[in-house]
């Protein structure tokens, strides 16, 4: 097990003591872990809402032409809209590009969906058989790379 994994285990500093979480509680590599949740005002992926798949793609709505006008949007919200306006991006790409945890991106994108500034594509549901013609296209596409 790597150092990073050990470091990422917050329990080590406060074994079993969730009530005594110090405010400097963060992990060297990841930076503060509390700040991103401040950005979402403490919300985690909204309850009752469909959990956005990592490869679900965020597509701006025409109404998102000028996301800056909406006062309730944070700079991160605006940046998500701007990135996706250039080219629709997946949740995973946004998380990597913005350097934010996936859970935070899910919440922010959920807000934008509620505001009808973006919609999100649904990847093929897991139980469904993959479309054979799509698989053929993937093979051809890979060969042609």
């Amino acid at each position: 097990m790597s150092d990073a994994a050990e470091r990422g285990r917050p329990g080590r500093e406060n074994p079993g003591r969730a009530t005594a979480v110090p405010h400097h509680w963060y992990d060297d590599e990841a930076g503060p872990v509390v700040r991103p949740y401040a950005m979402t005002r403490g919300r985690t992926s909204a309850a009752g809402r469909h959990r956005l798949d990592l490869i679900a793609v965020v597509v701006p709505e025409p109404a998102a032409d000028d996301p800056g006008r909406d006062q309730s949007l944070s700079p991160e919200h605006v940046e998500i809209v701007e990135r996706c306006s250039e080219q629709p991006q997946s949740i995973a790409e946004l998380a990597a590009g913005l350097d934010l945890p996936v859970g935070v991106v899910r919440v922010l994108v959920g807000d934008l969906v509620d505001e009808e500034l973006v919609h999100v594509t649904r990847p093929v549901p897991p139980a469904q058989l993959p479309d054979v013609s799509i698989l053929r296209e993937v093979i051809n596409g890979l060969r042609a790379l």
Partner: protein
Amino acid sequence: MAFGRSSRKKTPVEPVTLKILVAGGFGVGKTTLVGAVSEIRPLRTEEVLTEAGRPVDDLHGVEAKTTTTVAMDFGRITLREDLVLYLFGTPGQDRFWFLWDELAQGALGAVVLADTRRLEDSFAAIDYFERRGIPFTVAVNCFEGARRYPVETVRAALDLDPEVELVLCDARDRESVKSVLVAVVEHALVLADRAHASAAT
């Protein structure tokens, strides 16, 4: 629906997105493999996890959480404007198995990278994909200095189902990795064809 400001820009293309997982033991070359074919510099995406069910007090108005950070390799291959393949390197440590479940959902298939010097490191991944019926291909990453074994010997050591393909690869080499991915999708295609055929009868 009428929007006040109809599209000045062309409507964005909504791509079909697919994913392939890259699994295997510690240091077997997962990050290297993803980087060899990804068109974006190897990105690592991180998931913050909440340990559910543990009572926590509020911390400066921010919900206090038991969190940990997991790095996942992540790559993108745009096959066409409307067809995008994502690669996810699965986190290796056992305590992140539950993350695999999310990654595996809807995955088109998986690569299990193996190193002949430490074949046992790939058993867990093979078991995982077998049990979930996710199409996978075993790719033996050929490190210099590692003894070469006949493919049949490796297959036997891994106790692979005859249908599962085993290929040799160099995780640093784009062409080599491309053919590994093609092998995964071809296997998925065979299984999907069969499933459609049996559904039709």
